[in-house]
C-alpha cells in the first residue's frame, strides 16, 4: 500500500500511540487536538518513542528522523482536508465522537475512511454522526499501540464492504494483526477480560486466596504473562472501573459490574502503578521499562 495521509484525532495516550504506528509505517500523519498543550505533549510522546527506538537500535538515525518528520500537529480540522484515513481516539464520549465525524463530512473527500478507536461505545452509534456511515469502521488498538500487534475490527450496521476490506488492508500495511468481531460491547478482549478481572477481585474479597496466592496460582497454571492484580495495577483501577461500568450499563450483566473493592481503591487514590500503589506498592511510577 502506498503512503497515505492519516489524521489521528486526540493526542492522548492512545492517539499518540496510534500516530506513532502510522508514522513508523511511512504514512504522512496529522495529529489533531483542540488543545495546544495536549498536542505538544502528544508530539513529544511520539518523538520520545522514536528517540528511544533509535537508542535501542530498532531504528537507524535516518529512519528515526524520517518518522519524526512525517508527523505534523494541528488544532484545526480544516487541515485534514486531504486525509485518506481518519482515526479518532478522542474521549469516550458519544456526542463528541459523532460531532467530530459530522464536521469532517464537510471537510474530507467522500472516499476518506473513518476509523474509531472506541473501546466501549457502539461503532454504529458513532457512525450515525456521519452522513456516510458506510465509511465508518471500528478499529480498536491495544495500549501501548506501538508495541501491541492486535487490532479488533468491528463494522457498524451500515459499514460498507469496501470500507471493511480497505481497513483490513490498511491495518496489514501497518504490520498489525486484525481480528474481525462484532459491534458488541467490549469486542473480544474486554468482553472476556473485564469479567475475568472482576471475578479475581471477588475471589480476593471472599478470601478464596490472597493477592499473592491468586497471582501466583494464575501465573503458574494458566500461561498468563502476569497475575490479575499485577495487570490491574498496570491498567489502573480508575480505567478498570470506567470500562467495567460502561460495559455493565450496556449489558446489564452483573459479571461486568466492578466489585466494591474497586470503588474503595479508587476513592483511596490507590490506582496502581501510576500512583505508586494499587494492589502492590511501587518505588517508581514508570509503566514500561523504557
Amino acid at each position, binding site marked *: 500500500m502506498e503512503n497515505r495521509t492519516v489524521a489521528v484525532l486526540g493526542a492522548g495516550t492512545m492517539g499518540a500511540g496510534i500516530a506513532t504506528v502510522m508514522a513508523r509505517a511511512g504514512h504522512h500523519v496529522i495529529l489533531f487536538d483542540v488543545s495546544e498543550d495536549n498536542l505538544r505533549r502528544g508530539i513529544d510522546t511520539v518523538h520520545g518513542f522514536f528517540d528511544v527506538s533509535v537508542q535501542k537500535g530498532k531504528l537507524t538515525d535516518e529512519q528515526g528522523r524520517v518518522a519524526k518528520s512525517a508527523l505534523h500537529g494541528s488544532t484545526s480540522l480544516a487541515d485534514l482536508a486531504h486525509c485518506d484515513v481518519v482515526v479518532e481516539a478522542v474521549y469516550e464520549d458519544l456526542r463528541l465522537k459523532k460531532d467530530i465525524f459530522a464536521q469532517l463530512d464537510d471537510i474530507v473527500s467522500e472516499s476518506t475512511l473513518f476509523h474509531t478507536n472506541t473501546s466501549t461505545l457502539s461503532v454504529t452509534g458513532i457512525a450515525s454522526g456521519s452522513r456516510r456511515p458506510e465509511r465508518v469502521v471500528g478499529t480498536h488498538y*491495544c495500549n501501548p499501540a506501538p508495541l*501491541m*500487534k*492486535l487490532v*479488533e475490527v468491528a463494522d457498524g450496521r451500515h459499514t460498507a464492504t469496501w470500507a471493511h476490506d480497505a481497513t483490513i488492508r490498511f491495518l496489514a500495511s501497518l504490520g498489525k*494483526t486484525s*481480528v*474481525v*468481531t*462484532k459491534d*458488541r460491547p467490549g*469486542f*473480544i*478482549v474486554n*468482553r*472476556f*477480560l473485564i*469479567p*475475568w478481572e472482576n*471475578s*479475581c477481585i471477588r*475471589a480476593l474479597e471472599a*478470601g*478464596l*486466596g490472597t493477592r499473592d*496466592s*491468586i497471582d*501466583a*496460582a*494464575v*501465573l*503458574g*497454571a*494458566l*500461561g*498468563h*504473562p*502476569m497475575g490479575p492484580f499485577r495487570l490491574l495495577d498496570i491498567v489502573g483501577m480508575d480505567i478498570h472501573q470506567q470500562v467495567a461500568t460502561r460495559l455493565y450499563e450496556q449489558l446489564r450483566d452483573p*459479571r461486568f459490574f466492578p466489585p466494591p473493592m474497586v470503588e474503595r481503591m479508587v476513592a483511596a487514590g490507590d490506582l496502581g502503578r501510576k500512583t505508586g500503589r494499587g494492589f502492590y506498592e511501587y518505588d517508581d511510577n514508570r509503566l514500561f521499562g523504557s
Partner: protein
Amino acid sequence: MRDIQSIGVIGLGTMGAGIAQVFAESGMTVVAVETSPETLARGLESINALLSGAIARGRQTEAGKEAVLGRIQGVIDVAALHGVDAVLEALPEDIAIKRAVLSEVAQVVGPQTPILTNTSVLSVARIASLIPNPARVAGLHFFNPAPVVRTVEIVSSIDTDPALVERLVDLVESLDKVAVQVKDRPGFLINALLFPYLNDVIQELDDGLATAEDIDVALKLGLGYRTGPLEMLDLIGLDTHLQATEAIYQATGDARYAPPPLLRQMVTSGRLGDKTGSGFRTAGELSTEGS
C-alpha cells in the same frame, strides 16, 4: 525439607501418570497402583512416553529417564502400599470407585498416613468421609499436563490437620512447583475462576462474536496469554471440561458454570478436542459464524 520420601499413586490415567513422573523425577520412590496388568502396562508406558518426550525437548537425559523409571514400582495390589509415607489417589471421578479403593487402602497404610486426592470434581470433605481419620486427608490438585504446569493447589477440608498442610507445602516446593493453599470449594481456586471464562468463550463463539481462531488470536495478542481459550479447551478435552463444569454447576447452582449448549453438542458428536483430532481449533473446526 519434605518428610514425605515415598508415595503411592493410585490410578495411572493422564493425571496419575504425569503426577507419578513428577514425584519420581524429584527423587521420590513411587508405588504406582492400577487395577489390572493391562491398565498398569498402559500407565507405565505413558510415563515412559512422557519421559521420552522430555528427552526430546532437552529436559531429561537417557540416564535420567532410567533412574526415574527405576524409582517407580508398578503394582496391581494395594497391599504394596504398606509402609509408604503418603498416598495420592488419581482415580476416575466416581465416588463409588473412590470409596471401594480408598477403604482398601486405609486398611493397608498406617492410621496416620496422609491420604491425598487429586480430585477436581468432588469435595475433599466428601472423600475424607470415606475413610477413618479424616484429618489426614487433603487435596493435592495438579493440573494437566502435570509435568509442565507449575501450580499445585493444596486443599484443606474442614477436617484437615493444619500440620499436614505445612508438610504438603514442603512437598510441593520440593517438586519445583508453586504451592497455593485453597479452600475446599467447588472448583477450588483456579477452576472456579477459569471455567466461567471458558464457558463464556464457548457461548460467544456460538453467538458468532468472532471465529474460534480470531478469539484465540485476540486474547493471545491482546493479553499475552500463551494459549487461547479454545486451544486450551481442546487440550483439556471437551468431555473432561464438560464433566468438571457440570459438577461445579451441580454443587453451586451458579449459572456461570452451566455447560453451554455448544459444549454438550461437541461432546455428543464425539468432538473431544486434541485427543480425537477434532475440537474447536483442531481439524473439522465448526462454522459458527452468526448470520
